[in-house]
């Protein structure tokens, strides 16, 4: 253990300013320094690489041909390694083709096929990334104010209930209907978030407890509403299914079928820009960050800490509600009991990987969206031999390695420098 380089924790956990560059240096030198000392970008890339290496072990374990080949490793070492390489490269190539670019569509396009088909994998990735970005923002913005929002799932359900009800139960003119549903989803999520902030501000109830409990309350509420015909259940159904939204309540798509970018994705990116602007350019955002750095200091500086908590949770809930709108109005067009999926928990990992910064969240959301799409694709391509849930392991490993730069440094023999690790986005219970 003694040779592990000890990285001193950053004394100022909020904002690490860029080191002032005294004189312009050669790009090459900067690049070499970044690689040998491990800038955050390099650490992230190495972390993804390391996660893929560990994931390869799971792929090998999944394939009976390869595991048998390993059984006779000493008799036929070349065969075992060849089979391993084949299985792993095939799985990862399939993942890439499913999520980013399939070379065969390019050659088809050259020979007169559809050009749009080239972009189909990317559009699927964007669609998957949309709700992840929005729940990621819901967690990230709370982190910046020093709160741990585990409740994106419950806020998601709150938004979904309102959006669904407005989507099938109310008739409005075309464009207005979409907007009203979006606003309704924001409000539905925001109410849940606001309640958490209010309880924390008024009674000191810890947001971690309240958000966890509200998640379960909202699941049960959803279950109740979806099993009564007078409420949200589709009248002809006995399953927990709501009616389809009215056509004019669904989010339109940009671009022709099938490679299309849902308006939801544009909303997600716009939301990220708005959050970035709020945090870095407004007084409210400054207050959030100050409260996040130290509530006591913020209070002495005259900032209304309680008000910041309530407001930031309200916004966080609203963002999670928008995530529900992106799913219900964008891709599913119908609310079922399982609609909430894992958007809430995924939001936490996305926010952590994005270091609680809006643009980081967008990139992390895209990466996880690509992994989800690729995972489903590879499961289909290998006829279920490589299950899609290895993607979940990959996601966990990526965040683990990104958050532990000291480990990456040991594995890749990088020189130790302080301050390029993940900032302390999350704080302890007393924070």
């Amino acid at each position, binding site marked *: 253990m003694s040779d*592990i380089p000890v990285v001193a*924790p950053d004394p100022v956990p909020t904002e690490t300013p860029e080191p002032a560059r005294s004189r312009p240096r050669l790009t090459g030198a900067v690049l070499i320094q970044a690689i040998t000392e491990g800038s955050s970008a390099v650490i992230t890339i190495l972390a993804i690489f390391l996660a893929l290496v560990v994931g390869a072990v799971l792929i090998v374990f999944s394939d009976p041909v390869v595991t048998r080949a390993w059984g006779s490793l000493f008799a036929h070492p070349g065969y075992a390694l060849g089979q391993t390489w084949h299985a792993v490269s095939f799985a990862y190539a399939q993942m890439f083709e499913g999520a980013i670019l399939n070379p065969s569509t390019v050659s088809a396009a050259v020979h007169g096929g559809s050009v749009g088909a080239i972009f189909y994998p990317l559009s699927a990735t964007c669609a998957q990334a949309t709700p992840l970005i929005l729940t990621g923002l819901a967690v990230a913005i709370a982190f910046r104010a020093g709160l741990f929002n*585990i409740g994106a799932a419950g806020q998601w359900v709150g938004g979904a209930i309102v959006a669904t009800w407005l989507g099938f139960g109310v008739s409005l003119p075309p464009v207005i209907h979409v907007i009203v549903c979006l606003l309704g989803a924001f409000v539905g999520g925001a109410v849940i978030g606001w309640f958490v902030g209010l309880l924390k501000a008024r009674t000191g*109830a810890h947001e971690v407890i309240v958000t966890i409990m509200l998640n*379960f309350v909202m699941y049960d509420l959803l279950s109740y509403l979806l099993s009564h015909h007078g409420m949200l259940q589709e009248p002809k159904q006995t399953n927990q299914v709501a009616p389809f939204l009215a056509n004019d309540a669904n989010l339109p798509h940009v671009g022709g079928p099938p490679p299309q970018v849902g308006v939801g994705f544009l909303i997600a990116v716009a939301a990220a820009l708005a959050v970035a602007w709020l945090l870095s350019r407004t007084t409210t955002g400054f207050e959030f960050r100050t409260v996040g750095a130290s509530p006591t200091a913020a209070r002495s500086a005259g900032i209304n800490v309680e008000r910041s908590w309530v407001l930031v949770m309200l916004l966080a809930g609203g963002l999670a509600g928008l995530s529900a709108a992106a799913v219900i109005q964008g891709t599913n067009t119908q609310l079922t009991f399982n609609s909430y999926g894992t958007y809430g928990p995924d939001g936490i990992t996305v926010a952590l990987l994005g270091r609680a910064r809006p643009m980081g969240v967008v990139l992390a959301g895209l990466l996880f969206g690509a992994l989800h799409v690729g995972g489903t694709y590879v499961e289909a391509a290998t006829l279920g031999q490589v299950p899609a849930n290895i993607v979940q392991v990959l996601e966990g490993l990526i965040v*683990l390695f990104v958050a532990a730069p000291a480990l990456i440094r040991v594995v890749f023999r990088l020189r130790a420098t302080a301050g390029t690790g993940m900032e302390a*986005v999350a704080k302890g219970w007393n924070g």
Partner: protein
Amino acid sequence: MERVTAVLAAVRQPLGARRAYLAPVTFVVLGLIDIGVFGAAALVHKGDASFLLSTTGSGVQIPAIRVPAAPLCFVLGAVSVGLGVLRGTTELSRLVRRLTVAAVLLFFVLSLLCWADAGHIALNVIIIAQGTFTASIPLILGALAGCLCERSGVINIAIEGQLLFGAFTAAIVASAFGGLWVGLVAGALAGGLVGVLLAVFAISFLMDQIILGVVLNVLALGMTDYLYDRLMAQNSADNTGVTFGDIKIPLLSHIPIIGPIFFASNVFLYITYIAIIAIQVALFRSRWGLRVRAVGEHPTAADTVGINVLWIRYRNVILGGLLAGIGGAFLTIGSAGSFIPDISSGFGYIALAALIFGRWTPLGALAAALLFGFCSELALVLPTVNPILPAPIMNMAPYVATIIAVAGLIGRVRAPKADGQPYVKA
């Protein structure tokens, strides 16, 4: 000058003044619900509520208790309101304050039961109590695991992952080797393995502990899903659903009421008793515990007097992992039998809430976990007694009860001071 002192007071105690009214107001509100909601509704049903105090087939049969539902609700509610007024107007000692909280909660539950049961078939108190323990055991063990970690200064969000991995490993080992005790040990070790990961990354690699906990949960979920697909789903001999039988403690299990509740369960309940007592005593009455708490509150000071901070943290985190692993094993080989993906379904997070709610003490966490378990059991039982109560709404009860308790009675809590901060020797 006066203004300055006022401002300073506001800075130091932002919630102090308001919190003084929290408990009395909560008492009065709960009392009014007893009267206005449960009492009034029970009046409409016009029936007695009846409670059974023995199970069929047990040695001593106790006659059922029948009480007039509506009048009892009114009396209990009035007493609750009175306690609220008393608490709001007079200074009470700490013990009396706690007793009033317990009484008001008990009265609330009794009124709820009377209302739900009025004019319906009898409720069996013994079965509800047994169910409460069944629902609470993983929460208690998980919260104790968290207590061990956090008292030494390491935040443990990974309880969920420890429960899940423990549950999986216990099920597969018990099925494959046909030995329940082997399964129990394997489950504990699996939880301990997650504990080792938590310790290495948090203590040696100085990783942010909240991120780490969340990540370990994601990994445990992903790995168990994956292994379930690969192993159990393809070969049912790996997931046979064997469970521990009940051990009836001689003599004690024959005591009416108490016996069947406390002394006639499987080994996990007894492990839980031992763990609660051992940790409560060790933490607050032994040198061992003093050192653990010192490390969790002020590691620098502890280091100065020669305590090995990192070793204590490693040891406690791994011990906690073993304990949570046993809690996980309960989910499979202790109650449900076979493993299903995501069998822990948020119990680890609820255990975490119980730990915070219980102010990082074993007994506090126990009380929180029992409250939660009791409400879950009620949610399960009441819709079968009284079909008017919709199951999904009743399922909310434990969560709503926790929110009310945390917001209305507990308020602000204080974690160990160095909780979550990695220790780097200067």
